[in-house]
Protein backbone atom coordinates (compact mmCIF):
# COMPACT_ATOMS: atom_id res chain seq x y z
CA UNK A 1 0.00 0.00 0.00
CA UNK A 2 1.46 3.32 -0.96
CA UNK A 3 0.78 6.46 0.91
CA UNK A 4 0.43 9.22 -1.57
CA UNK A 5 -0.94 12.26 0.08
CA UNK A 6 -3.14 13.17 -2.86
CA UNK A 7 -4.71 9.80 -3.51
CA UNK A 8 -5.70 8.81 -0.02
CA UNK A 9 -8.79 6.67 0.18
CA UNK A 10 -11.38 7.23 2.86
CA UNK A 11 -10.52 3.83 4.33
CA UNK A 12 -6.94 4.88 4.74
CA UNK A 13 -7.98 8.06 6.44
CA UNK A 14 -10.11 6.17 8.94
CA UNK A 15 -7.44 3.56 9.49
CA UNK A 16 -4.75 6.12 9.98
CA UNK A 17 -6.98 8.06 12.32
CA UNK A 18 -7.50 4.93 14.41
CA UNK A 19 -3.81 4.09 14.32
CA UNK A 20 -2.94 7.57 15.35
CA UNK A 21 -5.26 7.54 18.31
CA UNK A 22 -4.37 4.14 19.55
CA UNK A 23 -0.66 3.74 20.12
CA UNK A 24 0.20 0.77 22.25
CA UNK A 25 3.67 0.99 23.65
CA UNK A 26 5.60 -2.18 24.15
CA UNK A 27 6.58 -2.70 27.75
CA UNK A 28 10.28 -2.80 27.16
CA UNK A 29 12.51 -0.57 29.21
CA UNK A 30 15.63 -0.84 27.13
CA UNK A 31 17.57 1.84 28.93
CA UNK A 32 17.50 4.36 31.70
CA UNK A 33 14.91 6.45 29.90
CA UNK A 34 12.40 3.92 31.09
CA UNK A 35 12.25 5.88 34.30
CA UNK A 36 10.43 8.73 32.59
CA UNK A 37 7.87 6.46 30.95
CA UNK A 38 5.89 5.77 34.15
CA UNK A 39 5.45 9.49 34.86
CA UNK A 40 4.36 9.96 31.27
CA UNK A 41 1.78 7.24 31.58
CA UNK A 42 0.57 7.99 35.08
CA UNK A 43 -1.66 10.48 36.69
CA UNK A 44 0.36 13.63 36.32
CA UNK A 45 1.02 13.60 32.60
CA UNK A 46 -1.55 10.96 31.71
CA UNK A 47 -0.43 9.67 28.36
CA UNK A 48 -3.67 7.76 28.05
CA UNK A 49 -5.34 11.01 27.04
CA UNK A 50 -3.57 10.63 23.72
CA UNK A 51 -4.47 7.00 23.32
CA UNK A 52 -1.16 5.71 24.61
CA UNK A 53 -1.31 2.47 26.43
CA UNK A 54 1.04 -0.29 27.45
CA UNK A 55 1.11 -3.58 25.61
CA UNK A 56 2.58 -6.69 27.10
CA UNK A 57 3.91 -8.54 24.09
CA UNK A 58 5.28 -7.46 20.71
CA UNK A 59 2.36 -9.07 18.91
CA UNK A 60 0.01 -6.55 20.40
CA UNK A 61 2.19 -3.49 20.35
CA UNK A 62 2.45 -0.65 17.86
CA UNK A 63 5.27 1.45 19.23
CA UNK A 64 8.69 0.30 20.23
CA UNK A 65 10.04 2.90 22.56
CA UNK A 66 13.82 2.67 22.67
CA UNK A 67 14.38 4.35 25.98
CA UNK A 68 17.99 5.29 25.71
CA UNK A 69 21.32 3.73 24.82
CA UNK A 70 21.29 0.20 23.54
CA UNK A 71 23.93 -2.21 24.70
CA UNK A 72 24.77 -4.65 21.96
CA UNK A 73 23.27 -7.43 24.03
CA UNK A 74 20.02 -5.51 24.21
CA UNK A 75 20.18 -4.54 20.55
CA UNK A 76 19.87 -8.17 19.62
CA UNK A 77 16.74 -8.53 21.72
CA UNK A 78 15.34 -5.30 20.42
CA UNK A 79 15.75 -6.43 16.85
CA UNK A 80 14.09 -9.71 17.67
CA UNK A 81 11.28 -7.90 19.40
CA UNK A 82 10.89 -5.43 16.58
CA UNK A 83 10.65 -8.20 14.05
CA UNK A 84 7.99 -9.92 16.09
CA UNK A 85 5.84 -6.83 16.07
CA UNK A 86 3.16 -6.50 13.50
CA UNK A 87 3.09 -3.88 10.82
CA UNK A 88 2.44 -0.97 10.91
CA UNK A 89 4.90 -0.46 13.71
CA UNK A 90 6.78 2.58 14.84
CA UNK A 91 10.06 3.13 16.59
CA UNK A 92 10.72 6.10 18.79
CA UNK A 93 14.29 6.85 19.74
CA UNK A 94 14.17 8.25 23.21
CA UNK A 95 17.04 10.26 24.61
CA UNK A 96 20.22 11.68 23.20
CA UNK A 97 22.07 8.42 23.40
CA UNK A 98 19.89 6.90 20.70
CA UNK A 99 20.72 9.78 18.40
CA UNK A 100 24.48 9.97 18.65
CA UNK A 101 25.56 7.92 21.60
CA UNK A 102 25.09 10.74 24.09
CA UNK A 103 27.43 10.45 26.99
CA UNK A 104 28.35 6.93 26.06
CA UNK A 105 29.96 7.92 22.78
CA UNK A 106 33.17 6.12 23.67
CA UNK A 107 31.68 3.11 25.39
CA UNK A 108 32.61 -0.23 23.93
CA UNK A 109 29.22 -1.75 24.53
CA UNK A 110 26.59 0.68 23.28
CA UNK A 111 25.54 1.58 19.77
CA UNK A 112 25.75 5.20 18.81
CA UNK A 113 23.09 5.73 16.17
CA UNK A 114 19.86 3.83 16.42
CA UNK A 115 18.68 4.51 12.89
CA UNK A 116 21.46 2.43 11.48
CA UNK A 117 19.89 -0.65 12.98
CA UNK A 118 16.18 0.04 13.13
CA UNK A 119 14.00 2.46 11.19
CA UNK A 120 13.34 5.27 13.59
CA UNK A 121 10.25 7.36 13.07
CA UNK A 122 10.71 9.95 15.75
CA UNK A 123 13.63 10.94 17.92
CA UNK A 124 13.10 12.60 21.25
CA UNK A 125 16.25 14.25 22.51
CA UNK A 126 17.36 15.13 25.98
CA UNK A 127 19.04 13.24 28.74
CA UNK A 128 16.62 12.43 29.76
CA UNK A 129 13.63 13.86 27.96
CA UNK A 130 10.97 15.29 30.18
CA UNK A 131 7.52 13.72 30.05
CA UNK A 132 6.33 16.79 28.18
CA UNK A 133 8.81 16.19 25.43
CA UNK A 134 7.92 12.51 25.38
CA UNK A 135 4.31 13.44 24.82
CA UNK A 136 5.35 15.96 22.22
CA UNK A 137 7.29 13.21 20.51
CA UNK A 138 4.21 11.05 20.45
CA UNK A 139 2.19 13.90 19.04
CA UNK A 140 4.78 14.26 16.32
CA UNK A 141 4.41 10.56 15.62
CA UNK A 142 0.66 10.95 15.44
CA UNK A 143 1.10 13.73 12.90
CA UNK A 144 3.34 11.53 10.82
CA UNK A 145 0.86 8.68 10.99
CA UNK A 146 -2.06 10.77 9.91
CA UNK A 147 0.01 12.09 7.03
CA UNK A 148 0.92 8.53 6.16
CA UNK A 149 4.63 9.20 6.60
CA UNK A 150 5.36 6.88 9.48
CA UNK A 151 6.14 3.84 7.42
CA UNK A 152 9.28 2.61 9.09
CA UNK A 153 8.22 -1.00 8.77
CA UNK A 154 8.15 -0.74 5.00
CA UNK A 155 11.46 1.03 5.00
CA UNK A 156 12.91 -1.74 7.09
CA UNK A 157 11.52 -4.37 4.81
CA UNK A 158 12.81 -2.63 1.71
CA UNK A 159 16.28 -2.01 3.08
CA UNK A 160 16.49 -5.17 5.12
CA UNK A 161 19.87 -6.09 3.73
CA UNK A 162 21.40 -2.78 4.66
CA UNK A 163 20.00 -3.00 8.16
CA UNK A 164 21.12 -6.59 8.49
CA UNK A 165 24.61 -5.69 7.44
CA UNK A 166 24.79 -2.99 10.08
CA UNK A 167 23.27 -5.21 12.70
CA UNK A 168 25.63 -8.05 12.03
CA UNK A 169 28.57 -5.69 12.24
CA UNK A 170 27.70 -5.04 15.87
CA UNK A 171 26.26 -8.36 16.92
CA UNK A 172 29.10 -10.74 16.36
CA UNK A 173 27.37 -13.99 16.97
CA UNK A 174 24.30 -13.72 14.80
CA UNK A 175 22.07 -16.60 15.75
CA UNK A 176 18.64 -15.27 14.98
CA UNK A 177 15.59 -16.60 13.21
CA UNK A 178 14.94 -15.07 9.82
CA UNK A 179 12.60 -12.20 9.32
CA UNK A 180 10.13 -14.06 7.26
CA UNK A 181 7.57 -12.02 5.46
Amino acid at each position, binding site marked *: MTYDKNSKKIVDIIQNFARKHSLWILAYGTG*CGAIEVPPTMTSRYDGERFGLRGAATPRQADVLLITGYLATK*TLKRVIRTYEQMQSPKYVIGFGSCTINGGMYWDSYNTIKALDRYLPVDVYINGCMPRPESVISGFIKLQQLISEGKANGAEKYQKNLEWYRENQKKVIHNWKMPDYNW
Partner: protein
Amino acid sequence: MREKETTIYLGPQHPGITGNMMVKLKVAGDTIVKAETHVGYLHRAFEKLMEQRTWTQSFPIVCRICVPEPDPNEENLARAIEEIEGREVPERAKYIRVMVLELARLATYGLWMGGQSGSMGLYTMPQWTIGDRDYILDLFEELTGGRVYHMYIWAGGVRRDLPEGFTDRVLKTLDYLENRLPDYDNLLFNNALFQKRAQGVGIIPKDKAIEWGVVGPPLRGSGIKHDVRIDEPYEVYDKLNFIVPTSDGCDVWSRALVRRQEYEQSISIIRQVIEKMPKGDYYNKIPNPLTWQVPPGEAYVKTESARGEFGYYVVSDGSIKPRRVHVRGPAYVHGVSLLEKILVGANIADVSFIMNSLGTCPPEIER
Protein backbone atom coordinates in the same frame (compact mmCIF):
# COMPACT_ATOMS: atom_id res chain seq x y z
CA MET B 1 17.17 -34.21 24.57
CA ARG B 2 15.03 -31.41 25.79
CA GLU B 3 14.78 -30.57 29.42
CA LYS B 4 11.98 -31.78 31.56
CA GLU B 5 10.97 -28.47 33.05
CA THR B 6 9.44 -25.70 31.06
CA THR B 7 11.64 -22.69 30.43
CA ILE B 8 10.05 -19.33 30.89
CA TYR B 9 11.89 -16.15 30.02
CA LEU B 10 10.93 -13.41 32.40
CA GLY B 11 12.42 -10.49 30.62
CA PRO B 12 14.07 -8.55 29.15
CA GLN B 13 10.87 -7.61 27.36
CA HIS B 14 8.31 -8.49 29.97
CA PRO B 15 5.86 -6.30 31.84
CA GLY B 16 6.80 -7.90 35.11
CA ILE B 17 10.53 -7.33 35.07
CA THR B 18 12.12 -4.40 36.81
CA GLY B 19 14.28 -2.59 34.33
CA ASN B 20 16.07 -4.50 31.66
CA MET B 21 17.22 -7.87 32.83
CA MET B 22 16.19 -11.44 32.45
CA VAL B 23 15.33 -14.20 34.84
CA LYS B 24 15.30 -17.53 33.14
CA LEU B 25 12.90 -19.71 35.02
CA LYS B 26 12.58 -23.43 34.91
CA VAL B 27 9.11 -24.26 36.09
CA ALA B 28 7.24 -27.42 36.92
CA GLY B 29 3.63 -26.47 36.83
CA ASP B 30 3.77 -22.94 38.10
CA THR B 31 6.37 -23.67 40.72
CA ILE B 32 9.88 -22.53 40.04
CA VAL B 33 12.49 -25.22 40.13
CA LYS B 34 15.43 -23.15 39.05
CA ALA B 35 16.00 -19.49 38.44
CA GLU B 36 18.90 -17.96 36.63
CA THR B 37 19.48 -14.23 36.45
CA HIS B 38 20.93 -12.87 33.27
CA VAL B 39 22.18 -9.31 33.32
CA GLY B 40 24.26 -7.16 31.04
CA TYR B 41 21.52 -5.68 28.95
CA LEU B 42 22.30 -2.28 30.36
CA HIS B 43 26.05 -2.50 30.48
CA ARG B 44 27.50 0.86 29.47
CA ALA B 45 30.94 0.33 30.99
CA PHE B 46 30.73 3.26 33.40
CA GLU B 47 33.78 2.15 35.28
CA LYS B 48 35.77 2.07 32.09
CA LEU B 49 34.38 5.40 30.97
CA MET B 50 35.34 7.03 34.25
CA GLU B 51 38.91 6.01 33.67
CA GLN B 52 38.70 8.12 30.50
CA ARG B 53 37.12 11.15 32.17
CA THR B 54 38.49 13.74 34.53
CA TRP B 55 37.30 13.75 38.11
CA THR B 56 34.74 16.45 37.41
CA GLN B 57 33.51 14.75 34.29
CA SER B 58 32.85 11.63 36.30
CA PHE B 59 30.00 13.25 38.18
CA PRO B 60 27.56 13.30 35.28
CA ILE B 61 28.41 9.67 34.69
CA VAL B 62 27.90 8.23 38.14
CA CYS B 63 24.41 9.57 38.60
CA ARG B 64 23.30 7.49 35.65
CA ILE B 65 24.30 4.31 37.37
CA CYS B 66 21.13 4.02 39.35
CA VAL B 67 18.26 5.48 37.46
CA PRO B 68 15.54 5.64 40.11
CA GLU B 69 17.80 7.12 42.74
CA PRO B 70 20.90 8.82 41.33
CA ASP B 71 21.87 10.96 44.30
CA PRO B 72 23.61 8.35 46.46
CA ASN B 73 26.02 7.84 43.57
CA GLU B 74 26.99 11.50 43.46
CA GLU B 75 27.19 11.56 47.21
CA ASN B 76 29.45 8.53 47.24
CA LEU B 77 31.83 9.81 44.61
CA ALA B 78 31.97 13.21 46.25
CA ARG B 79 32.65 11.74 49.67
CA ALA B 80 35.27 9.37 48.30
CA ILE B 81 37.15 12.23 46.65
CA GLU B 82 36.84 14.30 49.77
CA GLU B 83 38.19 11.44 51.83
CA ILE B 84 41.18 10.90 49.58
CA GLU B 85 41.86 14.58 49.21
CA GLY B 86 41.03 15.50 52.78
CA ARG B 87 38.77 18.27 51.56
CA GLU B 88 36.46 19.94 54.05
CA VAL B 89 32.78 20.29 53.31
CA PRO B 90 30.86 23.28 54.65
CA GLU B 91 28.22 22.45 57.21
CA ARG B 92 25.40 23.88 55.12
CA ALA B 93 26.37 21.71 52.17
CA LYS B 94 26.14 18.65 54.39
CA TYR B 95 22.61 19.54 55.40
CA ILE B 96 21.63 20.20 51.82
CA ARG B 97 23.09 16.86 50.82
CA VAL B 98 21.08 15.05 53.45
CA MET B 99 17.98 16.84 52.31
CA VAL B 100 18.59 15.84 48.71
CA LEU B 101 19.34 12.26 49.65
CA GLU B 102 16.20 11.95 51.72
CA LEU B 103 14.09 13.53 49.01
CA ALA B 104 15.54 11.02 46.61
CA ARG B 105 14.65 8.27 49.06
CA LEU B 106 11.06 9.49 49.18
CA ALA B 107 10.91 9.55 45.40
CA THR B 108 12.30 6.05 45.19
CA TYR B 109 9.83 4.73 47.72
CA GLY B 110 7.07 6.31 45.70
CA LEU B 111 8.31 4.44 42.68
CA TRP B 112 8.72 1.28 44.71
CA MET B 113 5.17 1.42 46.03
CA GLY B 114 3.99 1.75 42.48
CA GLY B 115 6.12 -1.12 41.29
CA GLN B 116 5.24 -3.39 44.17
CA SER B 117 1.53 -2.94 43.71
CA GLY B 118 1.75 -2.87 39.94
CA SER B 119 3.40 -6.26 40.03
CA MET B 120 0.32 -7.71 41.65
CA GLY B 121 -2.17 -5.92 39.48
CA LEU B 122 -3.16 -3.00 41.67
CA TYR B 123 -2.79 -0.36 38.99
CA THR B 124 -4.29 2.49 40.92
CA MET B 125 -1.37 2.67 43.31
CA PRO B 126 1.32 3.44 40.72
CA GLN B 127 -0.91 6.09 39.26
CA TRP B 128 -1.04 7.78 42.62
CA THR B 129 2.45 7.31 43.89
CA ILE B 130 4.29 8.00 40.67
CA GLY B 131 2.15 11.06 40.19
CA ASP B 132 3.03 12.22 43.69
CA ARG B 133 6.66 11.39 43.19
CA ASP B 134 6.63 13.91 40.40
CA TYR B 135 6.16 16.70 42.89
CA ILE B 136 9.48 15.73 44.43
CA LEU B 137 11.00 15.74 40.99
CA ASP B 138 9.65 19.26 40.59
CA LEU B 139 11.66 20.26 43.63
CA PHE B 140 14.73 18.65 42.17
CA GLU B 141 14.14 20.41 38.93
CA GLU B 142 14.00 23.75 40.68
CA LEU B 143 17.04 22.98 42.74
CA THR B 144 19.25 21.35 40.15
CA GLY B 145 17.73 21.88 36.74
CA GLY B 146 17.17 18.19 36.14
CA ARG B 147 14.22 16.04 36.99
CA VAL B 148 15.97 12.73 37.13
CA TYR B 149 19.69 13.26 36.89
CA HIS B 150 20.79 16.07 39.11
CA MET B 151 24.60 16.26 39.15
CA TYR B 152 24.08 18.37 42.20
CA ILE B 153 26.34 16.95 44.84
CA TRP B 154 29.94 17.68 43.95
CA ALA B 155 33.24 17.19 45.63
CA GLY B 156 33.48 19.91 48.21
CA GLY B 157 29.80 20.63 48.60
CA VAL B 158 26.87 21.09 46.36
CA ARG B 159 26.65 22.77 43.00
CA ARG B 160 24.46 25.70 43.97
CA ASP B 161 22.69 27.10 46.96
CA LEU B 162 19.04 26.62 47.70
CA PRO B 163 16.84 29.03 45.76
CA GLU B 164 14.74 31.63 47.48
CA GLY B 165 11.86 30.08 49.39
CA PHE B 166 12.84 26.57 48.42
CA THR B 167 12.56 25.17 51.91
CA ASP B 168 8.98 26.37 52.13
CA ARG B 169 8.12 24.56 48.98
CA VAL B 170 9.84 21.46 50.28
CA LEU B 171 7.79 21.64 53.45
CA LYS B 172 4.62 22.14 51.45
CA THR B 173 5.40 19.09 49.36
CA LEU B 174 6.16 17.10 52.49
CA ASP B 175 2.81 18.09 53.95
CA TYR B 176 1.14 16.96 50.78
CA LEU B 177 2.96 13.64 50.79
CA GLU B 178 2.16 13.10 54.43
CA ASN B 179 -1.48 13.77 53.79
CA ARG B 180 -1.43 11.21 51.04
CA LEU B 181 -0.12 8.51 53.34
CA PRO B 182 -3.52 7.51 54.73
CA ASP B 183 -4.69 7.01 51.16
CA TYR B 184 -1.74 4.78 50.45
CA ASP B 185 -2.43 2.87 53.61
CA ASN B 186 -6.03 2.30 52.73
CA LEU B 187 -5.26 1.22 49.23
CA LEU B 188 -2.19 -0.87 49.78
CA PHE B 189 -0.92 -1.49 53.26
CA ASN B 190 -4.26 -2.11 54.91
CA ASN B 191 -5.52 -4.10 51.97
CA ALA B 192 -6.24 -7.62 53.12
CA LEU B 193 -5.43 -8.94 49.69
CA PHE B 194 -1.96 -7.42 49.72
CA GLN B 195 -1.32 -8.92 53.12
CA LYS B 196 -2.58 -12.26 51.91
CA ARG B 197 -0.27 -12.22 48.94
CA ALA B 198 2.74 -10.79 50.68
CA GLN B 199 2.82 -12.79 53.87
CA GLY B 200 4.95 -15.88 53.76
CA VAL B 201 6.27 -15.11 50.29
CA GLY B 202 9.89 -14.51 49.37
CA ILE B 203 11.26 -15.46 52.72
CA ILE B 204 14.86 -14.52 53.58
CA PRO B 205 15.66 -16.18 56.91
CA LYS B 206 17.63 -14.09 59.36
CA ASP B 207 20.81 -16.15 59.32
CA LYS B 208 20.71 -16.47 55.56
CA ALA B 209 20.24 -12.74 55.23
CA ILE B 210 23.62 -12.25 56.85
CA GLU B 211 25.25 -15.06 54.96
CA TRP B 212 23.95 -13.94 51.58
CA GLY B 213 25.02 -10.34 52.09
CA VAL B 214 21.58 -8.79 52.01
CA VAL B 215 21.44 -5.05 52.63
CA GLY B 216 18.88 -2.33 53.10
CA PRO B 217 15.17 -2.86 53.66
CA PRO B 218 15.30 -6.60 52.92
CA LEU B 219 17.88 -6.97 55.68
CA ARG B 220 15.84 -4.88 58.07
CA GLY B 221 12.76 -6.81 57.00
CA SER B 222 14.56 -9.90 58.23
CA GLY B 223 14.95 -8.36 61.64
CA ILE B 224 18.54 -7.12 61.50
CA LYS B 225 19.00 -3.53 62.45
CA HIS B 226 21.63 -2.36 60.07
CA ASP B 227 21.63 1.01 58.45
CA VAL B 228 24.68 2.89 57.20
CA ARG B 229 23.17 6.11 58.45
CA ILE B 230 23.47 4.80 62.00
CA ASP B 231 26.34 2.34 61.89
CA GLU B 232 28.68 4.64 60.05
CA PRO B 233 27.03 8.06 60.11
CA TYR B 234 28.00 10.28 57.23
CA GLU B 235 27.22 13.92 56.63
CA VAL B 236 25.01 15.06 59.49
CA TYR B 237 22.98 11.97 60.18
CA ASP B 238 24.47 11.72 63.65
CA LYS B 239 22.87 15.04 64.50
CA LEU B 240 19.40 13.99 63.42
CA ASN B 241 16.72 12.07 65.22
CA PHE B 242 15.28 9.11 63.47
CA ILE B 243 14.65 5.47 64.05
CA VAL B 244 15.54 2.55 61.86
CA PRO B 245 12.46 0.38 61.57
CA THR B 246 12.84 -3.37 61.47
CA SER B 247 10.42 -6.22 61.15
CA ASP B 248 10.76 -9.89 61.88
CA GLY B 249 8.58 -11.41 59.21
CA CYS B 250 11.41 -12.00 56.75
CA ASP B 251 8.85 -11.92 53.93
CA VAL B 252 7.64 -9.44 51.36
CA TRP B 253 5.13 -8.08 53.79
CA SER B 254 7.67 -7.17 56.43
CA ARG B 255 9.90 -5.54 53.83
CA ALA B 256 6.92 -3.49 52.74
CA LEU B 257 6.26 -2.46 56.32
CA VAL B 258 9.87 -1.41 56.79
CA ARG B 259 9.72 0.76 53.71
CA ARG B 260 6.41 2.23 54.73
CA GLN B 261 7.86 3.32 58.07
CA GLU B 262 11.01 4.64 56.51
CA TYR B 263 8.88 6.81 54.29
CA GLU B 264 7.61 8.58 57.38
CA GLN B 265 11.08 8.74 58.88
CA SER B 266 12.45 10.40 55.77
CA ILE B 267 9.80 13.06 55.91
CA SER B 268 10.71 13.74 59.50
CA ILE B 269 14.44 13.83 58.68
CA ILE B 270 13.91 16.42 55.96
CA ARG B 271 11.90 18.55 58.35
CA GLN B 272 14.68 18.37 60.91
CA VAL B 273 17.26 19.22 58.29
CA ILE B 274 15.37 22.28 57.19
CA GLU B 275 14.95 23.33 60.77
CA LYS B 276 18.60 22.92 61.68
CA MET B 277 20.17 24.05 58.43
CA PRO B 278 22.85 26.69 59.13
CA LYS B 279 23.62 29.59 56.89
CA GLY B 280 26.96 29.88 55.19
CA ASP B 281 28.95 28.45 52.34
CA TYR B 282 27.54 25.69 50.30
CA TYR B 283 30.70 24.91 48.40
CA ASN B 284 34.36 24.47 49.08
CA LYS B 285 35.81 25.49 45.77
CA ILE B 286 37.87 22.93 43.88
CA PRO B 287 40.79 23.95 41.67
CA ASN B 288 40.51 24.23 37.89
CA PRO B 289 38.51 21.14 37.00
CA LEU B 290 40.51 20.46 33.88
CA THR B 291 43.78 20.09 35.76
CA TRP B 292 42.41 19.01 39.10
CA GLN B 293 44.56 16.20 40.41
CA VAL B 294 43.44 14.15 43.34
CA PRO B 295 46.36 12.85 45.39
CA PRO B 296 47.06 9.10 45.33
CA GLY B 297 44.95 7.11 47.70
CA GLU B 298 41.93 4.95 48.02
CA ALA B 299 38.62 5.07 49.80
CA TYR B 300 35.61 2.91 50.31
CA VAL B 301 32.55 4.97 51.11
CA LYS B 302 29.03 3.83 51.78
CA THR B 303 25.67 5.50 51.60
CA GLU B 304 22.34 4.15 52.63
CA SER B 305 20.20 4.41 49.54
CA ALA B 306 16.56 3.48 49.43
CA ARG B 307 17.47 -0.01 48.37
CA GLY B 308 20.34 -0.46 50.78
CA GLU B 309 24.00 0.08 51.20
CA PHE B 310 25.60 1.76 48.21
CA GLY B 311 29.35 1.39 48.24
CA TYR B 312 32.02 3.07 46.13
CA TYR B 313 35.59 1.97 46.02
CA VAL B 314 37.65 4.78 44.51
CA VAL B 315 41.34 4.62 43.74
CA SER B 316 43.36 7.62 42.65
CA ASP B 317 46.86 7.43 41.28
CA GLY B 318 47.42 11.15 41.48
CA SER B 319 46.44 11.97 37.91
CA ILE B 320 43.56 14.06 36.64
CA LYS B 321 41.52 10.93 36.01
CA PRO B 322 40.37 8.28 38.47
CA ARG B 323 42.38 5.12 38.43
CA ARG B 324 39.43 2.97 39.34
CA VAL B 325 35.92 3.54 40.55
CA HIS B 326 34.16 0.37 41.55
CA VAL B 327 30.49 0.57 42.34
CA ARG B 328 28.83 -1.85 44.68
CA GLY B 329 25.13 -1.36 44.23
CA PRO B 330 22.68 -2.87 46.68
CA ALA B 331 20.94 -4.71 43.88
CA TYR B 332 24.18 -6.38 42.97
CA VAL B 333 23.57 -9.09 45.48
CA HIS B 334 19.77 -8.83 45.54
CA GLY B 335 19.34 -9.12 41.85
CA VAL B 336 21.67 -11.96 41.08
CA SER B 337 22.61 -14.43 43.75
CA LEU B 338 19.85 -13.70 46.25
CA LEU B 339 17.08 -13.67 43.66
CA GLU B 340 18.23 -16.95 42.22
CA LYS B 341 18.02 -18.51 45.65
CA ILE B 342 14.75 -17.26 46.98
CA LEU B 343 12.85 -17.77 43.76
CA VAL B 344 13.29 -21.51 43.97
CA GLY B 345 10.03 -22.99 45.12
CA ALA B 346 8.12 -19.79 44.61
CA ASN B 347 5.04 -19.48 42.52
CA ILE B 348 5.44 -17.95 39.09
CA ALA B 349 2.88 -15.36 40.10
CA ASP B 350 5.24 -14.07 42.75
CA VAL B 351 8.42 -13.59 40.75
CA SER B 352 7.87 -9.99 39.86
CA PHE B 353 6.40 -9.39 43.27
CA ILE B 354 9.48 -10.69 45.05
CA MET B 355 11.81 -8.87 42.71
CA ASN B 356 10.11 -5.61 43.48
CA SER B 357 10.29 -6.22 47.18
CA LEU B 358 14.05 -6.70 46.90
CA GLY B 359 14.39 -3.49 44.95
CA THR B 360 16.24 -5.07 42.09
CA CYS B 361 17.71 -2.44 39.81
CA PRO B 362 19.65 -3.87 36.87
CA PRO B 363 21.66 -0.76 35.86
CA GLU B 364 23.62 -0.88 39.08
CA ILE B 365 24.30 -4.59 38.72
CA GLU B 366 26.10 -4.26 35.44
CA ARG B 367 26.79 -0.52 35.26
